[in-house]
């Protein structure tokens, strides 16, 4: 029974959600809304679990003086201080706003900005025309980067057209194939879960 009951719940819920999509009746909508509310509540428990997990991992790191344990102190300090600022001073809290505006925002922006340097370095090392396919990729990348360049003169218009064609034809065809493949894979996995073939969500089985 320990295995049969969860499998039954998954089967009934999965089947209901699939059928409900095609039944625009008020009762079906009511059950759907009810399930949605439950999903949000369950999601909040998962969030609590995530917070507990990061507290435990960081505390252990500090206790064992593991490599870079000092960073774990900063994680815990941020995790504890931000909710305290928000709960005591509300969203207008001076500390909360300043921590967000002058620590979190610049940190995020810096991390993302570093990408430009890594991309430049990676392009220099990896974009080599060592085969036909690599040459096509290289050529496409250069065209896409040049499409809004103001120094191309009479070449600007045809390069712009070519870039639009690359995005709208070969790029789209490849993406469509990938998306359809992913979609079919998702349907297959969902069916396997509903029918009880895929049971990894129940732990080691």
């Amino acid at each position, binding site marked *: 029974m320990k295995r049969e009951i969860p499998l039954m719940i998954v089967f009934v819920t999965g089947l209901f959600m699939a059928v409900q999509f095609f039944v625009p009746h008020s009762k079906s909508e009511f059950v759907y809304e009810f399930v949605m*509310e439950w999903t949000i509540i369950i999601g909040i428990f998962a969030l609590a679990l995530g917070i507990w997990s990061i507290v435990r991992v960081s505390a252990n790191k500090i206790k064992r003086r593991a490599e870079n344990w000092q960073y774990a102190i900063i994680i815990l300090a941020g995790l504890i201080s931000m909710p305290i600022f928000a709960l005591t001073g509300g*969203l207008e809290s001076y500390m909360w706003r300043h921590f967000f505006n002058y620590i979190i925002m610049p940190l995020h922006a810096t991390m993302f900005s570093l990408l430009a340097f890594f991309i430049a370095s990676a392009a220099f090392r990896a974009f080599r025309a060592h085969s036909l396919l690599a040459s096509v990729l*290289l050529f496409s990348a250069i065209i896409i980067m040049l499409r809004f360049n103001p120094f191309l003169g009479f070449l600007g218009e045809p390069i712009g057209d070519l870039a639009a064609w690359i995005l709208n034809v070969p790029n789209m065809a490849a993406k469509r194939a990938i998306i359809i493949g992913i979609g079919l894979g998702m349907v297959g996995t969902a069916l396997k879960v509903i029918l009880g073939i895929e049971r990894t969500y129940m732990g080691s089985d």
Partner: protein
Amino acid sequence: MNIFEKIAKLDRRWIYLILAAVVVITILVKFESPLRVNPEVRSIFNFVEGLEEDQYIHFAMDYDPGSMAELHPMTYAIMEQTLAKGVKIIITALSPNGPGMAESAMLEIMDSVRVKYGRELIYGEDVVFLGYKAYPGIVILSMGQNYRLSFPSDYYNTSTDSIPMMDGIINYDNVEGIILITGTSGIDFWLAYANGRYNARLAAGLTGVSAADYYPYLRSGQLFGLMGGMLGAAEYETLLREPGDKPGPAMEAMRVQVWAHITIIIFILIGNIGYFVSKRKGGMR
């Protein structure tokens, strides 16, 4: 080791230094990049232009401060245009680090509409910020049923039912469209649930690296418009620009991007020359 082999093995720190120098210098050099506006950007502009006073749109700011440099110009351009027309906006921010940034942007835009267009906007009557809720997929699905399921109160903890502009607004059926600005794959949820399940009209502004991935949705009609990165924002600003206006922030940033791209292309060409020359010499030996 000859010069080409040396170039092919150039220390990455030199690349970082040169790129940093290019970025800093081009901020200071003024020139304008001629932009041609793509139809996917124009269709968002036309959509907003076609809206009438007191109609509603949903504006989803699903990005973190990390992608702020690329995505903020789109948000400012579209929201300013929309609010100046008297269209009401429902804002959500389904990215964990986004709400604080979204609120600041909303307040700044309200202020700039007041200064530029002389239109005094009132929170709760012209614009509402519902804030953040975890698990975007579930939140997007539930908003399709009723905004109040996920957001019984707004960002400032005011009951959604007591907000004047939310009176009679139940779900996506009551808004003319959703404009999503995102730096994450959260757009997949909006496509599958808001558009796929509830038939909401959806347009997206994405970071440059992810825009190319969503062209299939544009051609299938699931997205009615698409803006990619700084270029998309600059194209939008071009459409909004009146004669004599100063270039917008994205148009200004484009000249940095143009030169950064030229630098990267030069590096790629140098790398390939080094590669081919070394290969040829190796083959001859």
